[in-house]
């Protein structure tokens, strides 16, 4: 009955203000230097900065879903995101581009303030965080997420893993514990490249420790000033044959007026 029932979608959030002040660039080399060794939280902040620009931006996220090797769904979203200077989390406006049945629908993410707008009915509906409208992808997977704001990081080990491109990478393994209610996952294991701070792999866990999803960040390209992952591969924890590929394209730095990021503007939004 809810008009939002027919939808899918995505989400992720972004960056720290004043991040440049942190000693994040020489992290890898610093790991071997006792005096410059960064904290686990700084490592996490640095990996956030790699994934997400610290200025308002837009991109296109194309989600392709597979079940047992067969494509079962696809969805294209246009996303604009902007850091909230007061509340900290990123605020994102997500517009459905494809498929045709969902084109033009909007979702507003502002922390726990979630709204869905259907232009066909001109009605906006408040959603609860559990009322996700996408398939496998959670809100936190799609919209820009600043993990360092929502989690307390603990350094676990230095490990060599095989990354999403099947190359061996030396990583810091971090264990992230959620510290705010709006965190998408209570527990995350994150592997951050020891030389570049690039987040390479994450395992998202329930509070019980059960594996919910595994994600690989890959297809690194220079976008908006630095190397960023342009693809995330999400593998379901219970059903490894359930795979979602999220590809990011059309990166652009753009003005995102605060007026856009409130419920009342949704009927007017036209990118």
């Amino acid at each position: 009955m809810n008009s939002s029932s027919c939808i899918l979608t995505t989400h992720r959030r972004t960056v720290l203000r004043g991040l440049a002040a942190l000693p994040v660039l020489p992290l890898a080399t610093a790991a071997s230097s006792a005096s410059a060794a960064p904290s686990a939280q700084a490592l996490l902040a640095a990996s956030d900065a790699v994934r997400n620009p610290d200025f308002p931006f837009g991109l296109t996220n194309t989600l392709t879903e597979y079940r047992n090797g067969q494509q079962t769904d696809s969805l294209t979203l246009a996303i604009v995101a902007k850091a909230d200077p007061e509340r900290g989390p990123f605020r994102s406006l997500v517009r459905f581009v494809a498929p045709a049945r969902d084109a033009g629908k909007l979702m507003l993410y502002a922390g726990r303030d979630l709204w869905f707008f259907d232009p066909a009915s001109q009605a906006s509906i408040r959603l609860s965080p559990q009322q996700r409208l996408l398939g496998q992808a959670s809100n936190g997977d799609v919209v820009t997420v600043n993990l360092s704001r929502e989690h307390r990081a603990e350094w676990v080990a230095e490990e060599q893993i095989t990354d999403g491109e099947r190359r061996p990478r030396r990583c810091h393994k971090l264990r992230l514990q959620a510290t705010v209610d709006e965190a998408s996952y209570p527990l995350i294991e994150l592997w951050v490249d020891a030389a570049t701070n690039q987040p390479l792999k994450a395992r998202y866990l329930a509070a019980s420790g059960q594996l919910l999803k595994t994600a690989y960040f890959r297809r690194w390209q220079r976008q908006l000033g630095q190397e960023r992952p342009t693809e995330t591969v999400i593998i379901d924890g219970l059903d490894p044959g359930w795979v979602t590929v999220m590809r990011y394209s059309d990166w652009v730095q753009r003005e995102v007026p605060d007026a856009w990021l409130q419920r009342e503007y949704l009927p007017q939004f036209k990118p």
Partner: protein
Amino acid sequence: MRPPRNPLPPLRALLLAALAALAGWGSAATAQAGAPSDLDALQLADRTPAPAAAPARDWQGHVEAAAGQARRATWAGGGTLGSQRLSLALQLDTALAPGWRFVAANRLDLDWPAQPGKEKHALHTLQEAYASGQIDAAQTLDLGRVRAHFGVATGYNPTDVFRGGSLRSQASADPNSLKRNRQGAVMLRSRHLSEAGALTWLVSPRLSADSQPSDAPFSLDTGASNARHRALLAWSPNLGGAWTERLNVQTLLLAQEGQAPQAGLNLSALLGEATTAFAEWTGGHSRSQLAQALGTPQETHFHPRLSSGFTWTSSRRLSVTLEIAHNRAAPTATAWQALQTGAGLGSPLAYTLYRQWVSNAQELTTRRLWAVYASWPDAWAQHLDLSAMLRVNPDDHSRLHWLELRQHGERFDVALQWQHTSGTPLSDLGAAARSGVWQLSLRRWF
């Protein structure tokens, strides 16, 4: 905690890496024999084609063919009745000039037999057609026929002041379908957004001397949409702090020709990870609904209307909404019974006039209505959505049940709907001309 001060010696690191790689890549395979591994998933991702450029067009629409069968009420002749429908819906949102755009939506329904209460088989609805200007980053102006929607409840929206006269064509009992298919009213609307909140004002003039809905196939139906002069002011404050994410408030003030000003309030709140709550209220002096429907003079009284409830979503994405509605301007159970039986003000003509008035105004027939709405995307299989509705009128114990199964693909939807009403022949929900309705529809998006 800090990373180790001394990295692992290269040889040991290499050995550990090999073990880690073996453990990592092989874990899934060893845990579940034959199950896909992370490597399989990455290879699958490798084969994913590059995203195609999104179609750059400013219009969209769908065509829908439907066929069904219903049991005709005894008073309407009895027996079973077959029905067919063909619908075409188009929406346009195009740039006119820098900062200005033109928005339009229309719908054409061809029904055999004609929809209940209608005489013509064809019914075209110009849902909206307006120019929209972005005056600056914070202010917009709209002029034309606009579908202005207010309210936070699912079924009964007392603050949705432009719902009256908006139902020209009714393809389904689904409240969401009713909202999608409604026609707007001609108005001038302005929105001003600031850090303090959002202010909306609008004026909507009376455009027809005959304030009656029209059944003419291609009528603009301004007699229904613009039956009286109206002006509305709505203010949505930014509450600031933690309240911003948990509570949304909107206050409204409506002035309309022939009635005292009405105040309104919309509240929606986040109660936890899985629950939202809503309440919408209006109040003001007016004659009773019965007096308005029959055109009889009556002293005005303060009549509040309220619709409130909550929506809970399970971890498997099943959302259930409970909604309780109350309207003090509607007849009490006793007055409603008198109207049905012809006692007091009641007569067959009065009953018919009142039902028509309620239907056109989208008001409650009696003082109370309880409803449960359910929505379950990907219910038992991927792309199979289940929607359901139960409405109960506790004043006359009539009920409406509605169920839909919808299988959707990228371009096509197939839906099976069932609707059943129960109650006495003149009761609120049991008086439908058609009951036991089945409908199968195929929709093509383009």
